[in-house]
């Protein structure tokens, strides 16, 4: 009997819901996310303001819609940089090995020895804050962990007999790496991507929370949580709703990752 993979299913449902929410936010918000109104200061959730209003009378629902878009965009862009660079570096190091592999991996060790958020703060302190700088800083800091993951997968496959046969056939090395070996590593890499995505969301949130990420008046989930902490007792809804969205976002993607890992486990 086949065990049902609830993690994967539930994760897909939650992620789809959050993704739909994000997409809507890119084209439509009930109010302008930066429009202030003194009459609606600290307004509690109501039919006209579903999530209530913040200290400047801005609609929290609209800001959450906009903020999740910013957060997801930053996370995906970070992931794209970190993953693509990590893939190329990890694949080449893992397949060829040798002295260069040794040197590159020691550099990766050095980078990962520091907490990535802390390093990102240092980088931001040097190049300045703002959306694109956050993406660049986080993206570069994500490279080592992906490089290592990809490398370990390639080491697993590089001495397999199907690779030996491909060499004897005269398949060019780059084709062996990206066409023969890479497809075998996708399940592990996808699961690594989900973890990376969550880390990127959290890193963006914590950097914006510290005030060095997304600059006001732009909304991002971390930015909103950072502002909300001052009004935790006056307007608890300001914290609750953006916080809930962060949790759902991470939970959904995390469950997909867990589901994929379970699948791999079933196969072996």
């Amino acid at each position, binding site marked *: 009997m086949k065990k049902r993979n609830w993690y994967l299913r539930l994760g897909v449902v939650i992620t789809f819901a959050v993704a739909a929410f994000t997409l809507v936010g890119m084209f439509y918000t009930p109010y302008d996310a930066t429009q202030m109104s003194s009459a609606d200061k600290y307004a509690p959730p109501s039919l006209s303001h579903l999530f209530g209003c913040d200290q400047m009378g801005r609609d929290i629902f609209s800001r959450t819609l906009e903020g999740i878009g910013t957060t997801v965009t930053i996370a995906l862009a970070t992931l794209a940089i970190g993953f693509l660079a990590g893939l190329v570096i990890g694949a080449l190091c893992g397949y060829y090995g040798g002295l260069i592999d040794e040197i590159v991996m020691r550099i990766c060790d050095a980078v990962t020895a520091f907490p990535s958020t802390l390093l990102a703060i240092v980088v931001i302190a040097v190049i300045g804050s703002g959306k694109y700088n956050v993406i660049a800083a986080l993206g570069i800091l994500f490279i080592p962990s992906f490089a290592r993951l990809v490398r370990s997968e390639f080491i697993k496959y590089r001495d397999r007999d199907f690779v*030996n*046969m491909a060499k004897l056939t005269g398949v060019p090395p780059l084709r062996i790496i990206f066409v023969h070996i890479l497809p075998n590593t996708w399940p592990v890499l996808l699961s690594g991507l989900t973890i990376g995505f969550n880390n990127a969301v959290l890193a963006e949130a914590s950097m914006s929370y510290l005030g060095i990420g997304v600059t006001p008046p732009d909304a991002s989930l971390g930015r909103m949580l950072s502002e909300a902490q001052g009004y935790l007792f006056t307007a608890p809804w300001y914290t609750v709703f953006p916080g809930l969205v962060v949790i759902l976002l991470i939970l959904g993607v995390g469950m997909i990752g867990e589901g994929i890992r379970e699948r791999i486990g079933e196969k072996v």
Partner: protein
Amino acid sequence: MTNEIILHLGNVNSYYGRGKARKQVLKNISLTLHKGEVLGVVGESGSGKSTLAKCAIGLVTDIEGERKLNVENSQMVFQDSYGSLNPAKTVGWILEEPLRVRGLRDKKELRRRAVEMLQTVGLEEEHYDRKPSQLSGGQRQRVSIAASLIQGSKLIILDEPVSALDVTLQAQILQLLVDLKERLDLSYIFISHDLAVVYQICDRVMVMYHGEVVEQGDVDAVYDNPQHEYTKKLLEASLSLG
């Protein structure tokens, strides 16, 4: 059998590891394989058989000595058919790959050649779209053989090709190898620890012990009248089991 030489190794040494851990795996190996010949290589595990195979075909390039390969294409068939077929690809893709890297792009022609090769090794067109994991061990080994032949290889090195199979399948695959050799004009190096199997398929045999060749000659001569102590022990062991 003609006198045309397919492969020649002269006084080959090979090492493994670096620095202090460096160990000599092959000691002064010489061999000559003629066209249409099947040369058996026997010995216990760790005797250097597989390293010899990899040196002969060019997978291990760090060797001392003389190596001359007189065929354009050569390929290996391994013991573990699960590891020698890419698990992420279909049988069809695996068979077409050697043709693709040689520049054949026409999809219909690729498929035709792959299916033709499947039939040559006793499989059907229906296996074309399967993944290796959806085949039985015997079918997988047939696909490995097909994959080794499709590029027009004239020398195949068989590294324990039937050791992972049960006895009935062993007989079928050995028969297939013999048929293919006649039909496609192949030469084999056949590596095995199983002396009975070697006796069935090989013309000549080389006995290896700790990286050295201790005895070689025609199969009948070596089996009937072994000269070296180690060969005698090997033969006794296999007889007492059989």
